[in-house]
């Protein structure tokens, strides 16, 4: 017999309050399973599941390892490895004058021996513990730096810091694969980026020298990322960190290969950011949250930043001032041109692959940014004013598209990002247009009202659907 709604609620309330709580032994694991385990007695009391089923559910969760404890252990082992090894680096850097050369060398090389011994034990015994692997990987990484440094210090070898970083990272790379340690992979990406910046940006003596080895060194880490995360389809926090480091590394280091052809470099960057957005749209790289998708965030922000920069007239005036012959020579001889070619071909190939698998309607509009920009580049050579106006239009279209996208996905962050793009565009135009103060004022009021209205609309929509 079905009880009416109010009676049923009263019945459940009384049953829950006065009937004894079923005795189910639980040791909560994750936050989600904790919630489920908490609900079990209630479900038993409400006769939704039997006591036996409840016990089986509890047993199932209890049998699982506790990931939050694991995660904490991994974090502490990485931190421990980092702190101990960096502490050793500092102690050795003190340069103990009293110690004879041989002892100094032994002290400096000993941490590497210890780290290798632990690493060997992990490999031979096939110990799966992530905490051990991460801690050992991080420690070995710094022990390698220590071993090279101590020899340099003892023999007063001046060395070249860029080369030191390169050798250090090349010796660290196998550690990533042997221990399958994402934390060491993160250090490797940071080290490789440091190497490129040292050679390309910082070092006075390597002016004119390009950090070519950066590219193969960065590519060498990709098989690890593929087999560890993408092939398994497992996207852990390590994956998010590595993808952030990877995208930022390329974004920063691409500038090392620019000497004085800014005009062409913009094509390279536009193609790179478009390639990032294209990758973010592929199933393999999709994540649940926007912020964890580094390809999408870096790509989208990069495209919008570049377009906003290009909405000023200086770039187009500079481009127009180059004679056609000059441009041809520029193109034929510059490294920037070859980079622009490579990245554009890469982005185009990825775009074709994406469009084969996804219908056009589902694809983020920013994936076409690089094609649009190439068209604008050609147009800008003939008519800078038309190109500049078109860029403004493109920014506006992207902004409206982003707002629409945010509304469709019911995502306040994306919606406000679109509104922010419009605001940024108006702020840029605030400085270089002849609009009267009244018009500018009205524009700002309009956008402010837009912010308010769009957010209100979204919140109301959410309430309605709730």
């Amino acid at each position: 017999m079905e009880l009416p709604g109010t009676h049923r609620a009263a019945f459940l309330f009384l049953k829950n309050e006065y009937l004894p709580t079923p005795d189910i032994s639980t040791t909560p694991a994750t936050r989600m399973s904790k919630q489920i385990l908490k609900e079990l007695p209630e479900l038993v009391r409400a006769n939704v599941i039997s006591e036996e089923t409840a016990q089986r559910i509890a047993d199932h969760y209890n049998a699982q390892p506790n990931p939050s404890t694991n995660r904490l252990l991994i974090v502490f082992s990485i931190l421990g490895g980092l702190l101990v090894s960096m502490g050793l680096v500092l102690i050795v850097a003190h340069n103990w004058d009293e110690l004879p050369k041989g002892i100094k060398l032994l002290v400096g090389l000993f941490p590497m021996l210890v780290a290798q011994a632990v690493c060997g034990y992990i490999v031979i015994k096939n110990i799966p513990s992530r905490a051990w692997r991460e801690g050992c990987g991080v420690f070995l990484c710094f022990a390698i730096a220590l071993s090279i440094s101590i020899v340099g210090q003892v023999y007063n070898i001046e060395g070249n810091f860029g080369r030191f970083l390169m050798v250090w990272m090349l010796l660290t790379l196998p550690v990533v694969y042997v221990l399958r340690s994402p934390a060491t992979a993160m250090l490797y990406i940071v080290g490789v980026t440091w190497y490129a910046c040292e050679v390309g940006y910082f070092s006075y003596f390597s002016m004119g020298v390009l950090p070519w080895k950066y590219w193969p060194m960065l590519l060498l880490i990709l098989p690890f990322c593929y087999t560890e995360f993408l092939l398994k389809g497992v996207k852990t926090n390590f994956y998010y960190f590595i993808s952030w480091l990877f995208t930022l590394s390329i974004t920063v280091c691409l500038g090392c290969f620019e000497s004085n052809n800014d005009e062409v470099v913009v094509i390279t960057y536009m193609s790179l950011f478009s390639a990032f957005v294209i990758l973010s749209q592929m199933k393999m790289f999709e994540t649940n949250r926007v912020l964890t998708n580094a390809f999408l965030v870096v790509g989208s922000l990069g495209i919008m930043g570049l377009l906003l920069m290009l909405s000023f007239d200086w770039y187009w005036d500079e481009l127009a001032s180059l004679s056609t012959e000059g441009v041809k020579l520029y193109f034929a001889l510059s490294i920037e041109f070859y980079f622009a070619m490579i990245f554009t071909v890469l982005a185009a190939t990825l775009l074709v692959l994406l469009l084969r698998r996804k219908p056009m309607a589902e694809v983020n509009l920013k994936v076409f940014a690089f094609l649009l920009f190439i068209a604008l580049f050609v147009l800008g050579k003939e008519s800078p004013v038309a190109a500049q106006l078109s860029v403004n239009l493109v920014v506006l279209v992207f902004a409206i598209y982003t707002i629409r996208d945010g509304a469709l996905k019911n995502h306040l962050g994306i919606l406000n990002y679109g509104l922010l793009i419009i605001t940024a565009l108006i702020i840029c135009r605030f400085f270089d247009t002849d609009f009267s103060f009244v018009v500018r004022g009205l524009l700002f009021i309009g956008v402010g009202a837009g912010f308010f209205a769009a957010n209100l609309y979204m919140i109301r929509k959410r309430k309605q659907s709730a």
Partner: protein
Amino acid sequence: MKTFVIILFVFMCAAQWLVPAKMIYDSEGVVLNGTVYKFRTQPIDPSDPFRGKYITLSFSENHVEAEPGDKWYEGEEAYVTFTTDSAGFAIPASISRNPPASGPYLHTKTLYPDFQEGPVPIELPFDRFYLEESKASEAEKVYWEAQRDSAQVAYGVVRIGAGKAVLTDVMINDRSIVEVVKALNESPE
């Protein structure tokens, strides 16, 4: 798979030992068999994030006369031989693009020539002398004291072998800078 990882591990360990071992082997070879030269110098005191405090030496004899008509550009690889002046300090003697058949020489790079002819500036890759961190700034003070007193002379002792060079000591008036600083620290104020 496990066998592959073990093989990779063995190669990894070998490579990680090979780099410092090669550095030690090369340097020891120069220290044991190289010819000693004294380079007049002026130290200053920076530090290195990995290797600690050091004094940087700035050598006055860092130009070499090239053969007439022999043009050198920035960043070229060069082989430089040295001789000594009447006071016993090293001066670069010759520069060439090929290593000399015999005798000690330094494998280095040219710096920024002002003119394509005339003395060629060369990089002397032994301008760091590592010191215990408490002594590095003290050593610099000692050096500046020496500079004020024109009778005192500072120089680096460098051993040069076949292409490589190792800086073994920095001397102030024929006493090691380490000893000078140690004596200063031990003597009452």
